[in-house]
């Protein structure tokens, strides 16, 4: 047995300057989560975190849509049913009823892990100090203004603003 007097390093004193920027470009339920989970983890580690929502990712922050993202097994050969490890044959994936069923199943699996739905997840990210940015071009394409967006969104900014503000950041495109 060794005797030590060590304390975990929490990097309090040094401003590491680490910054993370995540571009969320997908609006499918399954693709909304990676960005949210990583942003939440980074904030919990004291990392300055920015989320930039663009193209289909806009559905994550449009008030009327954010709570209603869908998951489709169509085109996703990695989707297995939770029982029996069966894959859904791709020919059946576009059938009526498949998407609601798959969405319901995925939502349940996520909820069973105690992971929140998208709107609540964004709320947590905001409370943890995360920044949410909406893409100018996507806003114009969708004809939406700040009034249509989740109230936690900091601003609608253009691509150049985003590049400027994420100077020195680690970037993830999802």
């Amino acid at each position, binding site marked *: 047995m060794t005797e*030590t007097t060590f*304390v*975990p390093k*929490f990097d*309090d004193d040094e401003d590491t300057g680490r910054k993370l920027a995540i571009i969320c470009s997908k609006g499918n339920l399954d693709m909304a989560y990676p960005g949210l989970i990583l942003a939440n983890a980074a904030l*919990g580690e*004291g990392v300055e975190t920015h989320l930039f929502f663009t193209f289909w990712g806009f559905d994550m922050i449009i008030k009327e849509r954010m709570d209603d993202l869908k998951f489709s097994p169509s085109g996703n050969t990695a989707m297995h049913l939770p029982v029996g490890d069966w894959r859904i044959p791709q020919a059946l994936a576009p059938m009526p009823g498949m998407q609601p069923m798959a969405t319901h199943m995925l939502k349940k699996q996520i909820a069973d892990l105690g992971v*929140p739905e998208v709107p609540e997840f964004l709320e947590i990210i905001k*409370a*943890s100090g995360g920044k949410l940015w909406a893409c100018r071009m996507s806003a114009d394409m969708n004809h939406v203004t700040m009034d249509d967006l989740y109230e936690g969104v900091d601003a609608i900014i253009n691509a150049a603003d985003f590049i400027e503000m994420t100077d020195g950041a680690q970037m993830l495109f999802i």
Partner: protein
Amino acid sequence: MPVTTIEGREVQVDDEGFMTVYDEWDEQLGGALAKLIDVDMTDEHWKAIQFLRSDFKTEGVTPTLRRVSTAGGLDMKRLFELFPKKPAKKMAYIAGLPKPHGCV
């Protein structure tokens, strides 16, 4: 497992310094651990630590930050103020528990 001395008491810790034996902890030790990482304990801090301790006892794992907020009824924003930058790890350290393993 390494052993470290805190407040003149020998406690078992992991490679990073997190305590590994639940029953070696008491509030006095928790106060000393807090001092080591420059957290000034108030009643609000203790409320969070007490939740971690009791939740670990029933669940067998250290609660994640979200669980402290939802099941423990503590405001997320406030937790970041009480335990700056890395609230989940700091709370676990002060509570004498392993780091949380959950992702969310």
